[in-house]
């Protein structure tokens, strides 16, 4: 299921006219708890502050006095745990789920750097990338991305793919120029070790293993061979071993790679 269009529930802590402000420590505790549960929170202190109703999954609450605005729920005297408990219960009743149940790991395209070369589209086996109506590359299915796997950022020739939650530059969004040398080193290492294509290497190694071991009927050795290859790739491209180990069968990898390549090819032709 696509995550696009799923709304993040939002809580408005209203502290404008007709309400008494929270004490700073109480406000902080409430915000921290709500954020830890995945809610968005607006603190609105009055005119010029955050507008109230936005029309979706929202709670507006305050320490209301007599002339509090209509729709503002009075939580005077409630501690943070009680407020969060109430919102959780109401949210579960409305949506049938906790507010956060997906780890947001996915590629983000720096459109100022991207040349629309389609390398990423042709590389990813999981259908993360797609094209928009103008035939420009876009991230179509972020939820298909494998958590902690930054492999596509390593194949992008322009360093245009960012994983904001990655530990190192420039993949984390840091300035590319400043770390250009490091980026080049990464490319060299990968191509030296893998010939630039982890999936192709995987297929070839698997195919070699298959031929050799189908004669020997030695499944354990075949698996060991695959593991060794995967470990090498994991180290070179920073791909988590569990991602590589969970890749589909060599035949399925070949099928998906062909499909991805055909999509990229068609996209290039379509753009001509």
């Amino acid at each position, binding site marked *: 299921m696509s995550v696009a*269009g799923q709304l993040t529930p939002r809580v408005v802590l209203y502290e404008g006219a007709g309400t008494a402000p929270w004490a700073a420590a109480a406000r*902080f505790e409430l915000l921290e708890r709500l*954020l830890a549960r995945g809610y968005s929170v607006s603190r609105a*202190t009055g005119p*010029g502050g955050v507008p109230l109703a936005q029309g979706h999954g929202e709670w507006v609450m305050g320490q209301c006095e007599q002339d509090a605005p209509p729709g503002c729920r009075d939580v005077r005297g409630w501690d943070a745990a009680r407020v969060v408990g109430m919102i959780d219960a109401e949210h579960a009743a409305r949506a049938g789920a906790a507010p956060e149940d997906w780890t947001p790991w996915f590629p983000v395209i720096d459109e*100022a750097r991207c040349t629309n070369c389609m*390398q990423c589209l042709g590389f990813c086996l999981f259908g993360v990338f797609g094209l928009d109506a103008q*035939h420009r590359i876009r991230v179509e299915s972020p939820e298909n991305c494998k958590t902690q796997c930054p492999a596509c950022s390593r194949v992008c020739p322009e360093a245009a793919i*960012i994983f904001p939650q990655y530990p190192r530059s420039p993949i984390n*969004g840091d300035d590319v120029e400043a770390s250009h040398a490091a980026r080049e080193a990464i490319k060299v290492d990968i191509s030296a070790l893998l010939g630039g294509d982890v999936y192709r290497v995987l297929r070839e190694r698997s195919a070699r293993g298959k031929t050799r071991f189908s004669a020997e009927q030695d499944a354990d050795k075949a698996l060991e061979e695959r593991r060794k290859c995967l470990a090498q790739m994991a180290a070179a491209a920073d791909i988590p071993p569990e991602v590589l180990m969970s890749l589909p069968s060599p035949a399925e990898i070949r099928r998906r790679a062909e499909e991805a390549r055909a999509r990229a090819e068609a996209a290039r032709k379509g753009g001509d």
Partner: protein
Amino acid sequence: MTEPPHLLYCHCAHARVVPPEVKTEVLRQLCASGASFEAVADLCALAARQDPLLRRLAAGGPLKIAACYPRAVRWLFAAGQAALSEARTEVLNMRVQPAPAVVAAMLDPRLHPNLAAMDNPKPGRDSHGTGPAPMTS
């Protein structure tokens, strides 16, 4: 009178790439101030979901964002279908800046836009197909 900037704080709840002591202190100081602000658990998640809050903030006038690298934040908003204005957006980076600097910048009514400087336009994105062949063969 110039419009005061809206403030957005990202709690980086999933990856925790922002040092916990920095984000906690920034949130604490925002709470202790008299300012209105928006706080989100995880800006990355909102971008993937194309949450309308991003569009409202991007279209809502001057904006200061406490999150991570400006380049990441800029293109996260774009992924969320919310183009940030170069002239009206300032991003504070809690991954590298100390909490007092982030707080001081967030609560300063003056805006110091910092998205434009990082642009490095390439010719191909809107003209297609200039890059090398795909790696799968």
